[in-house]
């Protein structure tokens, strides 16, 4: 006899799954519904909210800003994080444990604390409201995901592979490029995806650092909701839901994303 879930556990599990999808369904329904407040069944269907959002310069600017930050921070974190993780994994630096603790610390610190710390620091150094400051903040909060993914991938790698490449005449950088990098790539892609989504998602750090003129998509949604619920928020949220779902399915198809969670 197996310890398979019984009938009650199965029902509970399905109920929790429904609970998890509930707000997603509601947001999507609201985005296509004609009334500004959602009713069941909806009183009519429309694409007007999407049109409204996609023609509003404020939303478009926020989308651009968010994408710029997410791509920029992920690229920088990927480059710096992979290099550092390699040095840590191969024990090439003194105090590798302390370094690991430092690079993973932004994950442990409450985000809001990182936010206020950077707010004070930027106020002091004149970086407040600058895109550079914002980009660096996003590097700090995304780099732990890259480090974690890279360290896990490197730990699973036979150290003899790189040695084999070296003995066969490859220089150190060649051995990394030809052997190590291709083998840790799936892990790095998963880590980069996490980093990208983390950057795209972030409010608690970003909200302290943005200027009145530049804002990111989640911060704009956040402040719009504080003003009152508006179906254009549902429309922009639906676009985010579709994008996230699409990326997740693609990542799962391509390299079994769930293995890296």
């Amino acid at each position, binding site marked *: 006899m197996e310890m398979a879930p019984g009938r009650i556990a199965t029902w509970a599990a399905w109920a929790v799954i429904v609970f998890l999808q509930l*707000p997603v369904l509601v947001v999507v329904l609201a985005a296509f519904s004609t009334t500004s407040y959602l009713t069941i069944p909806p009183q009519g269907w429309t694409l007007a909210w999407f049109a409204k959002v996609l023609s509003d310069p404020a939303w478009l600017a926020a989308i651009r800003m968010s994408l710029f930050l997410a791509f920029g921070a992920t690229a920088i974190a990927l480059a710096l994080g992979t290099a550092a993780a390699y040095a840590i994994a191969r024990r090439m*630096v003194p105090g590798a444990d302390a370094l690991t603790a*430092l*690079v993973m*610390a932004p994950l442990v610190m409450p985000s*809001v604390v990182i936010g206020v710390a950077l707010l004070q620091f930027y106020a002091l150094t004149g970086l407040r409201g600058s895109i550079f400051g914002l980009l660096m903040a996003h590097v700090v909060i995304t*780099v732990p995901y890259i480090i974690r993914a890279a360290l896990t991938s490197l730990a699973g790698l036979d150290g003899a592979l790189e040695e084999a490449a070296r003995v066969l005449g490859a220089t150190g950088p060649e051995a990394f490029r030809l052997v190590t990098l291709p083998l840790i790539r799936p892990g790095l892609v998963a880590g980069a995806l996490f980093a990208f989504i983390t950057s795209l998602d972030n409010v608690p750090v970003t909200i302290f650092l943005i200027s009145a003129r530049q804002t990111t998509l*989640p911060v704009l949604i956040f402040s719009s909701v504080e003003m009152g619920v508006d179906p254009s928020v549902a429309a922009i949220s639906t676009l985010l*839901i579709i994008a996230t779902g699409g990326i997740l399915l693609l990542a799962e198809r391509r390299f079994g994303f769930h293995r890296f969670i």
Partner: protein
Amino acid sequence: MKRHGIALAGPLALVLAAFFLAPALLTLPTGFREYVPGQGITAGSWTLDAYRDIVSDDFYREVLWRTLGLGLAVTVICLLLGYPLAWMIARGPARLRMPLLLLVIFPMMLNLVVRSFGWIALLANRGLINNLLTDLGLIATPVKMMFNLTGMLVGLVHIYLPFMVLMLVAAIQNVPRDVEAAAMTLGSTRRHVFLAITLPLTAPGILAGSILVFVLTISALVTPRMLGGPTYRVMATLIYDEYMQMLDWPTGSALAFVLTAIALAIIWAANRVARRWSGMGAVT
């Protein structure tokens, strides 16, 4: 080797020193400055006022206890809701494993603000649930489910439940089936096997998941702000208000320090417990 290592790890270490370590350390002294309403921080004076306020002022104490209570409640609810689902994913039909896992990961990956917005659309006075209940004639006036404990609990459980489920799935998958089978051949009922074997063996996963959820909950800003509103406050929203609205940085810094200290202390304590457990688990 060492030279290459420093060249590789140096850039990141510098970025983190400049944009994480230095700011965090610079924030610490702010908590000991004097704040004069309307003027801000006065130069040159040092005081323990901010910390004294947090300890003695009823309002701050209430927020602190509310935050910790909320963290505990969310953790327990996540555990209770998460275990059956994790069990189903780990031990249920193999064909359901992947779809279920993706249905857990999907909301986790989804924008936090979007998810909280979804709950607003459901729970607001003119939200879906109240509309539905009114239309069905079950209630005359809307039930208040937002800007109070209910809304915050629902929203936070929804946000952090996936983390718990993933931790528990890993823990349940690590329980050797042979051990359960052995207990059954020794005459245990299913209930007894679960209570005597499976539950204790998944304890490290339960601990890890609980710590994660607790620490994330007490640090949460967005969901408490959106579903708790400007009045029903927790530590993180209070820090936000002190810094952005009251401009009382000393109190904000002191609150940030207390929040960080609690989070780090809990993680540290959990690590110690986990280490003791892993020593015990060496037999398996």
